[in-house]
């Protein structure tokens, strides 16, 4: 890239990269508007958790952020550029997605699955390259699935399968990783495994992570930045310690509660009030 001293975007260059932002974003399924006029900036180089009650539009927002859903109005930008004006593969080299319910093709092995993560990097007739294989090996290693590489994915346990899918997104080799409820259907041990893995990806591999989570305590513990949605609108956004108040939880989730510091981490913990 050529840089000139008086380039107009020098101020932007000082900001951390991988900033995903929504501007007046409306998202709609048919004639049902799910997300209404959302203005949002997600910090680059951080772990963001999107939380909110059922049907608040959090998964819809994630789908809008990765271009699975075209905005009815407004725009989504990545470092200032409209993602709907970027070529699909170029965008897929910047951000990877773990959908809520991916389809595991029958009898496909872990390695074969992870190799598909290289799709946006390949051209039609180019053979599999050393860089492709290196990315796959790295993804298998980071997710601890290299010992499972020859096993069919549909025969793995839920936790192993989720790690194989995360490995696919890692092989995509993107700066941003978006995950839609990655812990659903997993037992507590595997939920924590997945969240620890995500934290490590952020900390060791420098990925920007955006994930939709169901559990407020887990979101507060694992995220640097919390986005709380309520009925398709932004209820609050910021560091969990500042955002998560008893007043907010009662307003958004209709749960009267106390917020206490997590005895392990000091992050806010939601304790619902006992019924009297």
């Amino acid at each position, binding site marked *: 890239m050529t840089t000139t001293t008086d380039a107009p975007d020098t101020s932007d260059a000082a900001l951390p990269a991988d900033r995903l932002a929504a501007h007046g974003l409306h998202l709609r399924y048919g004639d049902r508007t799910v997300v209404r006029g959302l203005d949002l900036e997600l910090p680059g180089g951080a772990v963001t958790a999107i939380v909110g009650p059922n049907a608040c539009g959090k998964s819809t927002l994630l*789908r809008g952020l*990765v*271009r*699975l859903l075209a905005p009815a109005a407004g725009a989504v930008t990545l470092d200032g550029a409209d993602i709907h004006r970027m*070529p*699909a*593969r*170029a*965008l*897929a*080299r910047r*951000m*990877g*997605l*773990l*959908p*809520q*319910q*991916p*389809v*595991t*093709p*029958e*009898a*496909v*092995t872990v*390695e*074969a*699955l992870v190799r*598909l*993560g290289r*799709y*946006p990097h*390949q051209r*039609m*007739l180019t053979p599999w390259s050393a860089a492709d294989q*290196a990315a796959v*090996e790295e993804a298998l*290693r*980071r*997710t*601890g699935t*290299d*010992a499972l*590489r*020859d096993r069919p994915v*549909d025969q793995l346990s*839920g936790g192993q*399968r989720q*790690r194989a899918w995360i490995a*696919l*997104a890692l092989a*995509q080799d993107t700066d941003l990783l*978006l995950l839609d409820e990655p812990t659903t*259907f997993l037992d507590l041990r595997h939920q924590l*495994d997945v969240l*620890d*893995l995500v934290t490590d990806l952020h900390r*060791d*591999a420098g990925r920007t992570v955006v994930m939709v989570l169901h559990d407020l305590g887990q979101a507060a513990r694992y995220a640097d930045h919390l986005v709380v949605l309520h009925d398709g609108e932004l209820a609050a956004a910021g560091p969990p310690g500042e955002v998560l108040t008893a007043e907010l939880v009662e307003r958004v989730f209709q749960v009267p509660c106390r917020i206490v510091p997590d005895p392990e981490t000091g992050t806010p913990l939601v304790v619902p009030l006992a019924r009297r």
Partner: protein
Amino acid sequence: MSPHTLTPARPGAAGAVAGPGRLARARRRTLALIAAAAVLLVLMTGVALSTGQVSIPLPDALGALFGSGPAGDVLVVREFRAPRVLSALVAGAGLAVAGSLLQRLLRNPLASPDVIGVTGGASFGAVLLLATGASQALTPLAALGGGLLAAALLGAFAWRSRMAVTRLVLVGLAVQAGLAAAVNLMIVRFPAELAGQALQWTTGSLYGRTWPELWGAGGAVAAVTAAVFLADRRVAVLDLGDDSAGGLGLDPHRTRLGLLLLAVVLASLAAALAGPVGFVALAVPHLVRLLAGPPTPATLALTALTGALLLTAADHLVLHVLPVHGLPVGAVTATLGAPWLLVLMIRQGRLPQRSSR
């Protein structure tokens, strides 16, 4: 960057390439099956070319196909036998590849050209042509046109729902039922002689193929099959579900439409050559899956060869082996293929299961 894994890393595992694993074994097995199917196909073609009122030894028949040997043999093989035999070969391969692609695209093990209306469309085109009294030589073109008409209807009705899989299957069934009803109506209203011809066509037959038809359709089938091979990576990404495919930079709706079009053209070409032959498109992909495992480019090649072999063998049975004359080749493909499929399924112990996660 420090290596960090969820589970303790296997000692010495970093970057190691897997040994002769499941993938490599499956690939070797598939290659062996491909070689076997190719040899069988050449033999079957030779047998079909050498059999008839004048019996020609197999090596001579294969030679005569390429123009060497006595003039009489060359005439019999090239003018009378080869167009029919090679049409069966091309149509069988086209149908099998179309079926395999449709089953993957629609995520439905029962998908075949019948399900998306192509067979009905091809019959509709052919029978409509008979009704107008035009030259029968145009039947293949009419069948091709009918198949594409069905595809256009399917695309028009399913595009609004963004080519969603369930919607495609439903719309396809409706298109198929509507066109099949139109065909039946025409046959009922026809004079007896025309009705006989129409019925003959709609049950599938390879009678009366010519070299120009064969070159045209064969070339087109080869070209479309090549395109299917080239699209393998995209099909594999689409297999991950629309959301994952979108996340990997593939537009699932557009891609599915394009690939469906390829399958439709293949099935229409096959129907143009052989009439609406049943069972090949449905069963051959399952046979191949049971023999060689989940789909790869190699199993796609095996699918094409197996489809060609099945239809060539079925047509040979119809012509020379079975005591009943005038049996439609489609009836034989089913009789031949069904027991084989059942035996394989029983040996497998269970049908392959699909999981959603």
